[in-house]
């Protein structure tokens, strides 16, 4: 019984509604991993940061480090509570959760 989902989001939160929908529909206790252009939502101090912070108590948030570095955000402060993983960590997250859902 898939009760713990890993959600991935690969779209910019400024351009698309994918992150919004993920945050609206991810059940308490599941994990959200931001990848590709999705990583912009992990940065502190943007106009979308509060929407993410609001669900920090209920969801676990991860961000893919190589995508953060690629976008010049390696030195930027992330929203408190985010954990940075690499591709190995991505694989571990998939294995540790019961199913994976990609928000495209």
């Amino acid at each position, binding site marked *: 019984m898939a009760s713990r989902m890993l959600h991935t989001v*690969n779209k910019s939160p400024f351009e698309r509604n994918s992150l919004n929908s993920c945050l609206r529909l991810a059940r308490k206790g599941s994990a959200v991993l931001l*990848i*590709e*252009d999705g990583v912009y939502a992990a940065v502190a101090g943007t106009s979308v940061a509060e929407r993410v912070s609001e669900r920090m108590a209920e969801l676990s948030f991860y961000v893919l480090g*190589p995508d953060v570095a690629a976008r010049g955000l390696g030195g930027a402060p992330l929203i408190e509570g985010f954990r940075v993983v*690499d*591709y*190995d960590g*991505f*694989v*571990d997250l*998939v*294995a540790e959760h019961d*199913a*994976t859902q*990609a928000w*495209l």
Partner: protein
Amino acid sequence: MKLGILVNEGPFTHQASDTAYRFTEAALAKGHEIPRVFFYHDGVNNANKLSEPQSDDRNLVKLWSELGEKHGLDLVVCVAAALRRGMTDELLAAGFRISGLGQLIETGIEADRLVVFGD
């Protein structure tokens, strides 16, 4: 653990194929089994052997072929998606094969997890 992979976008235009490739590589290095990589939608273009990126950029078609050969991966291109996009047997890079969408569902059933990379 058995991890099935679905790639929904072509190389270069979207990062999805790059991420899928890197994920697959990492999963194999960790000892997971990849029973199949399925290419759907524009993902079928990952199998086009005529692709010739600039010499200082990555060649995703070749990377998939090489990873496939090294680990005996089953790289499957969806026939229906391929037909409309003109991706035929004669264009197929080494290690890829064309088959039905049923192979994706089978992967979903038999793998422990199915991971989707798309746009």
